[in-house]
Every structure is written in C-alpha cells, then in structure tokens.
C-alpha cells in the first residue's frame, strides 16, 4: 500500500506530538514549518480580507506545505457558534480552487458526535492498526503533550526570575529537545524529569518581587507564539510571571471527557454573573478566568484576540466593567497582520510598569511606612 503523506496546522510545541502520532499511524509526515512572515503573507494573499489572523496563518501554512506533495490534511473542527468550526471547510474550498488536490480530514469534538469521531479516526487509520495499538499510541503522545506543557509552565515561572536575561529561554529551547526526541512513555517521563532538572539549574533570584499576569483569549493566538510575537517571552523578560489560562492538556480534557472537569465548571460559574450565555470560542472562559485570577490575587490580565474575533469582542466589552469594578488592570491586544512587535512591546512595557508600581504601592501601604528590604529589584 502506498504510504500517504499528511500535514496539519502548526500550533506551538504540540506539532511534535502530532507528528509522532501520525507517524505511528503509518504516515509520512510533511512537517508544517513554524509560521513566519512569509507564511502570513501567503495567507493574507489568498484569505478573505476580514478573516481572522489564525485563519490566515493556517492557510499560509497549508500553502507552504502543499507544494511538497500532500495527500491529506488533518485538522480540528468545532460546532460554533464561533467561526473556527468552519475554517477547515473554507480552507478546503479556497485551496481546491487554487488547484491543489488533497483530502481534508476534520476531527470534530468527540463529545458532540462520538460516532462521527470514531469514523474519522478509523478513516485516518488507513493501515488498519488494531484499536489497542491506536490507543497505545494516543496515550504515549498524550503523555508527550503533558510533558511539553509541564516544562513550558516551568519556563514561564522561571523567566522573570532569571539573573541573566535570556538564559531561561536558551536553556528551555535545549531541554525541549529531550522531550521531542523521547519515544516511549518511560523515555518521555525521564526526559521530562531531566528537562525540569536542567531548567532549575539556571541561576534565578526567587526573592525577586514579580508581578503575576493572567493571560486569556482565543486558543490559537494563545498557543502559537509566532502569532502573538512570543508575547509570553517578552512579558517574562519584563519581569512578570505569565499564567496562561489554556494549555492543550486542559482544553482537550474539557472537550473530550464526558462530565466536565471541576476546573472548567468553576470557570463557567465565575463567568455566569457577567455572561450567562455560551457564546462560542472562548469568550466565556476569558471572563471566567479573569474573575478567578482576580480572586487569586493576580496583578493584571492580558487578553489576546484576533481582530474581529466575535466572542473576544463580547468578552472585552464586559471585561472593561470587571476591570473598573475590581480596580484590576486589563490589557487587550487585537491581533492582525498589521500588528507590529515593537508597538506591542511598548504597550507591554507601560502595562507591566503600571502593575509593578501598583504592587509596590500596595506593599508600601501594607508595611505602613516601614522600609522595604533590599531584596526588591525590578531586574
């Protein structure tokens, strides 16, 4: 049987787990390249003008990989009311119009249509591996995703505390390879352990006063750093710790397991007084998480949204009030192809600066005029 060539959209470190999974299913994987300026330019050229940034980036990625010869594209679906659920169908239409021939396979969330999901998986499994085999390979790569998430979270914590600027990022890049190269679950677990240990060796100042920033928004721009100009790294270097509201492990769990996790329930409950309706995308989560971050004593919030993203526009309108009522600074970025890294950095600097001054002020007040000790530094 001919070995089929397959590709998928680029999304953060997760591509390495997707790759493993598809290779185990007997595909030759045509790896999507990390989105670049060229990717975006291609996307912008062929996408409808008002489509949102993730749509353009993903289309650009396809346009870069399809000429290499691709039989299948596999991607995620969705059932609205946000647009993402229709992305794949429109991508397909546009690409076929351009003359490419391939098969688009869309994985819809299993919770919505379990039978359909099973059928799609069987279709993907063109070499007819046993269910047991598939289960094992999913489990193994799932473990990999978890390891990737854990190590990334560690980097987010360490970055604002590093003694030499850039040292965490540099080390992080290296240790990531451990996990990428691991195959069996045992190897992955070991790699994760090693990676964390290595990261912890980077010299840091744990007493440094660091402001904590929550991050909410639309899933793609949250998870794919090239779409948000590596915002998390920038924030870390400005001396703030980022807590991202969404990781693939969390998201997939909430969307695949019957009976929602406690986590998600509380996010929904937190959002309800402000936005009782599920409006698609992650609009309700953005609000719920904002409330939770406030309760947990975070210093501020950043919302990332593709320009024209409907759920996030609704969320932003309401977040304005939440920010006023709680005296809680919130910064929103509406991202499109015109967004520049420099402009973003300037706004971030001012924002983090504000958070630091606020926190300092609060601490000074708490000490009632007492002197602050010397460990305070803003690096």
């Amino acid at each position: 049987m001919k070995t089929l060539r397959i590709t998928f959209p680029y999304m953060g470190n997760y591509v390495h787990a997707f790759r493993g999974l598809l290779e185990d299913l007997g595909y030759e994987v045509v790896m999507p390249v990390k989105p670049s300026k060229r990717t975006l330019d291609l996307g912008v050229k062929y996408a409808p003008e008002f489509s949102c940034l993730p749509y353009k980036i993903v289309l650009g990625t396809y346009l870069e990989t399809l000429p290499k010869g691709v039989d299948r594209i596999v991607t995620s679906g969705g059932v609205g009311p946000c647009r993402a659920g229709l992305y794949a169908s429109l991508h397909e239409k546009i690409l076929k119009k351009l003359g490419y021939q391939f098969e688009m396979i869309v994985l819809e969330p299993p919770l919505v249509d379990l039978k359909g999901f099973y059928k799609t998986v069987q279709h993907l499994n063109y070499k007819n591996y046993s269910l047991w085999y598939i289960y094992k390979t999913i489990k193994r790569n799932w473990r990999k995703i978890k390891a990737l998430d854990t190590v990334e979270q560690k980097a987010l914590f360490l970055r604002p505390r590093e003694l030499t600027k850039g040292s965490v990022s540099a080390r992080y890049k290296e240790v990531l390879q451990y996990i990428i190269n691991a195959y069996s679950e045992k190897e992955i677990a070991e790699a994760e352990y090693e990676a964390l240990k290595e990261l912890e060796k980077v010299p840091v100042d744990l007493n440094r006063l660091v402001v904590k920033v929550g991050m909410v928004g639309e899933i793609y721009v949250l998870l794919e750093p090239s779409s948000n100009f590596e915002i998390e790294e920038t924030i870390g270097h400005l001396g703030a710790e980022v807590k991202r509201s969404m990781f693939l492990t969390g998201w997939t769990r909430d969307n695949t397991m019957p009976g929602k996790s406690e986590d998600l329930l509380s996010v929904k409950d937190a959002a309800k007084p402000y936005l009782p309706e599920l409006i698609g995308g992650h609009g309700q989560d953005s609000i719920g998480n904002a409330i939770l971050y406030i309760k947990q004593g975070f210093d501020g919030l950043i919302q990332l949204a593709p320009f024209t993203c409907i759920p996030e526009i609704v969320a932003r309108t309401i977040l304005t009030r939440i920010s006023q009522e709680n005296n809680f600074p919130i910064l929103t970025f509406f991202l499109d192809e015109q967004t520049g890294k420099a402009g973003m950095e300037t706004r971030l600097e001012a924002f983090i600066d504000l958070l630091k001054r606020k926190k300092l002020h609060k601490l000074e007040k708490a000490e009632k005029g007492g002197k602050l000790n010397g460990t305070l530094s803003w690096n």
Partner: protein
Amino acid sequence: MVNMAAPTVGIARTLNYYAYFPFWSGYFDTLGLKTILSPPTTKEILDQGVKDALAEACLPIKLFFGHIASLKKKVDYLFIPRIVNLNKKTVYCPKFLGLPDMIKYSYDDLPPIIDIRVDNRTFHDGLLIASLKLATKLGFSKLKGVKAYQEGLKRQQLYENLLAKGYLPINEVNVKKPKHFSVKSPFKIALLGYPYLVYDNYINFKVLEFFNQNEVQILTAEQVPLAVRKQYAPFTNKKRVFWTFSDRVLSSFQYYLKNVPDLKGIIHLTAFGCGPDFIVDRIMEIDAGERQIPYLTLTIDEHTGEAGLLTRVEAFLDMIKRKTRSEVSQ
C-alpha cells in the same frame, strides 16, 4: 402596574427588529404595553454608537449601541431579548447572544433590561415558553401570555408572507401598510446581506431607492420562504453554516443561483468587522464565479461615503449591461 399608564418598552430599530418586530409588537400590544421604537438610523445615532461601543466591534453592533443610547432615557424598559435559536438548527451570531450583557456593562444609566432568553433547542417551543415567562414576570396571567404569543405569531406570519411576495421593509416594519419598494423588471439583482443592513436606508445609502430609480428588481434573502430555503444546504455538503442570518443569506443565494435563469448579478452587502461574513462572502464569490454570474461585495463602515458606494454599484450595473449587450450581439 396594569392600572398605571401603560409602561413603555423600548426596542432598537436595528438587528433583530427587521426580522422579528411583528411578533414582539403583537405580543406587547396584546399585553397592553406600549412599544417605543428608536427613530430610523441617523448620523447622530451612528456617531453615538461608534463612541459607545468597542472600536473593534462590527458596524451593526455599534449601530445597536447608538439606538439603545437614543432610547434609554425615554422608556420604562429596554427590550433586548437573548434570541439564541428559533429553528432548532442554527444560532445567531455570538454578538447577538451576548447583546444584553454588552449593553448592561457599557452604560450606567439604563432602565431595567428585559433580556428574556429564547432557545428552541432545549424546549419544544422556546418562544412560547419565553412569552409565558415574560408575561408572568411583568405581572400578567399565563392565559394573557398565551394570547399575546398567538397575536405575535399571527403578525409575524403575515409579515413573512409579505416579504415572500417581494415587499421590502424600508426603515419600518409595517404589516398594515406594507411598502412595495421594488419594481418588477427583467433586470434582476440579488441583494444579499443581513436584514439590518439591507433594509436600513441610512446605513446602506438608500441603495434600494437607487435600484428602483434604475429599474432594477431586487431579490433579497427574505423573499425566499424558509420552507424553500431549507432544501438548499449551503457550503460544502459536509457542513451548514451555523448562524441563522448567514444561513439565510447562503441558502437564498443557492436558491437564486439555481432558480432565476435571468439573474443578472449578485451583490453582497456586508459590514466592516463582521465575523461570519468573511466565510459567507468567500463561499458566494467562489460559487458565483463558477457559474459566471457577476458578483460584487459592498462593505460598509462608518466612514463609507454615499458617493463612493453608489459609484461602485453604478459601475457594477454598467458592467453587467455591457456584458449582456455583447452576449446578445454575438
């Protein structure tokens, strides 16, 4: 409350107004509540909305903010229902779903908002349930609620029949004195878009009048009855678009494409910043292209000038006329 002078309920003359006002007017009339509409869109209303709404919001949402701002001081209640689903299949644009919340958290000086939720996916007749709930909340009996609901349905039916016959609601939805706005002519153009753009004379620069003067017959999405539209599944055969108004535009588009042999062209009227429309627009563009039917996208934003818009329409019509002439002479 029933004994006092009838309380007034404010309704914005935009968004859902063009689709469902007959129902709600019948409903509130029967209850004895007075509905007060915001005036037809004006420059002031639009400017106010642009000021009050989020800069990134689409034009129609800004417009809605403006209409609410013009109403809020003049009424006892603001009626902003959360209409989620009416046909068991499609939902409304997410901005519709979050409408009452967006308004609530953007203004400080609002009268109470009636934000009754209508969802047919969870109830057999969500509209009836919502009607009853609202009636009892306002202090009326259930029976009165049922009567109001029935009157609403009656008017709605009447209205939709009129639309199907080609009547166009220009600025006002009026089942007693409907306006027949479009000429009958062999020169037929489908003007597709959401009702709050197509029928709002201010926001579309009276484009309907313009067609009228130019002897162009206009076909709109609402002229294709739901029962007919249902048979036209837009998009790839795998998936329907899941927003009600988009589904309406796309299925009527398919209908016109297949059933009006002398269709001269298609114009898609869309608003700046509209989320669903980038999908709708590209689908229509590709499909119309395949059938070689001239296609024009008109995007309106708050800076669009009348001259610019109508010039483009004129050029489009000229192009079609030239095309037809050369086809004839061949």
